[in-house]
């Protein structure tokens, strides 16, 4: 840091090197999205007219709350199962641990369409689950599992649990081992160590994981489209439907604006909380 002789010139080099990427993000991402959001406030009917008409529609408010509900449930389920799984993975011996990590990475690298499609085969009217239940005589006629909120949540949890596991394994491994050993040397049972030391130290990681899963499931398209259909319309499928089927540009833009604002608000709020309660920061 001491021998920067031409800081001005070096700054210029830095700007020049990052210029193409900066301009690409500005020109192709920020400006178009800004234009979409700005466009919703230029309605001839009034500044907030598109939003008023959005929230006046019972169907569209239902869609918004359904989307929030699905995202919240997906996040909670993924947190609970992801944390328990990540704990086991982080404690596994070396070889097994890499195998378990690979097994979590693989579904992540498999596309969302493929993963939603798998549940279509399982949950369908003539799907594997129904065939099994009928075969075992548990039900006498096939259950209608597809196109329910449960199906969408199962598909979403399937999508996001690996993400949660992987981000939490990293967090749990970063908790110094000697802190946990100190806890048991002071007489804390494994369960006491879990609740009083491990969990509080993992909270920032849990928040990061929750944000990833919540925003991901709040904006997902393929899974609700395939497993929820029109009966379980969410914001993303509604946006697509407004834009590509009804050609209702203002309606679509309004949905886009609502999704963007909620996503960013949640990310900012949660990262603020995470920063405030992070015990590792002094």
């Amino acid at each position, binding site marked *: *840091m001491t021998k*920067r002789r031409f*800081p001005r010139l070096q700054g210029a080099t*830095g*700007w020049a*090197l*990052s210029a193409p*990427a*900066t301009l*690409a*993000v500005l020109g*192709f*991402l920020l400006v*178009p*999205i800004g*234009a*979409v959001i700005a*466009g919703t406030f230029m309605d001839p009917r009034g500044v907030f007219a598109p939003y008023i008409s959005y929230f006046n529609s019972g169907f569209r408010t239902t869609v918004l709350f359904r989307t929030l509900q699905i995202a919240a449930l997906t996040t909670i389920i993924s947190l609970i*199962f992801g944390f*328990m*799984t990540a*704990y*086991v993975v982080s*404690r596994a011996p070396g070889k097994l641990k890499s195998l*378990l*990590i*690979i097994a*979590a*990475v*693989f*579904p992540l*690298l*498999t*596309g*969302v*369409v*493929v993963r939603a*499609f*798998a*549940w*279509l*085969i399982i949950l*369908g009217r003539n799907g*594997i689950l129904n065939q099994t239940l009928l075969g075992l005589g548990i039900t006498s006629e096939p259950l209608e599992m597809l196109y329910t909120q449960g199906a969408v949540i199962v598909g979403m949890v*399937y999508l996001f649990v690996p993400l949660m596991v992987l981000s939490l*394994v*990293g967090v749990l491994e970063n908790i110094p081992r000697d802190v946990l050993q100190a806890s048991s040397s002071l007489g804390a049972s*494994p369960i006491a160590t879990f609740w009083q030391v491990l969990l509080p130290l993992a909270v920032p990681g849990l928040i990061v994981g929750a944000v990833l899963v919540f*925003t991901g499931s709040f*904006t*997902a398209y*393929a899974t609700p*489209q*395939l497993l929820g259909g029109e009966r379980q319309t969410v914001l*993303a499928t509604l946006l697509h439907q407004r*834009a590509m089927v009804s050609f209702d540009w203002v309606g*679509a833009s309004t949905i*886009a604006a609502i999704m963007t604002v909620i*996503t960013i608000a949640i*990310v900012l709020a949660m990262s603020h909380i995470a920063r405030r309660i992070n015990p590792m920061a002094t």
Partner: protein
Amino acid sequence: MSDRPHPFLIAVAALVYFFLMVPLVIVVGAALSDTTYLTFPPQGLSLRWFENIFEISAFRRTIVTSLQIAFLGTLIALIIGIPAAYALNRFRVELPKWLGTLFVLPILVPEIVFGFALLKSLTVGAGVPIFAALLIGHTLLVLPYVVRVISASLASFDFSIEEAAISLGSAPLKTFFTIVMPNVRAGVIAAFILAFITSLNDVSVSLFLTGPGISTLPIQILAHVEQFFDPTVASVSVLLMFLTVAVMAVVERTLGLTFLAK
């Protein structure tokens, strides 16, 4: 060690992994079935549905488009992303903080909103051809990954090595390629693979940027599933999974797989 997890936790973890693996196994099984409808376990083994992929011209075309877009988009993202990542690390003091944040921003924006915005401004607003718009969309989609992964490997790079090379008479640009790049090679490979797979699997951005004659494979799969319920899609899925396995094998060979978990 005495800190073995509680049997209940082990049982939960085993269930979660069962839940993760079984659907993928079912897709593979369904793809191999000889029947005209989707079923598992497969009845009769056959590769006819794999042949069927290539008999349907829409699949043939979209596979090619998807590979083209993924390759070109990743390449462009690397070409503009590597200098940016380098600048952000090398000139950390001179450049403002928000510049780094700018490259994280695309992750915060819902992809589907981004796709819609590109449709509105590029395709409809500026008459940009669909293929070009699709390419731009995918480049921007993967750019944050590229910048982040390469930044991470540059963060541990000691820039005094670069200064040493320059003091020994190596020209700055040559130094970048002979000294800096070899040291972040792992990061570049990881970024390429992550970006390529992300692009190949993308639905949300591509959704709005398809048109007559141009579509990507995931979009085509979605369209096919909504009309037919035969094992073709299972076969395509298996093809994509094989591709993923191949890529993971390459990563394993070059970097070790835990790298991807970061």
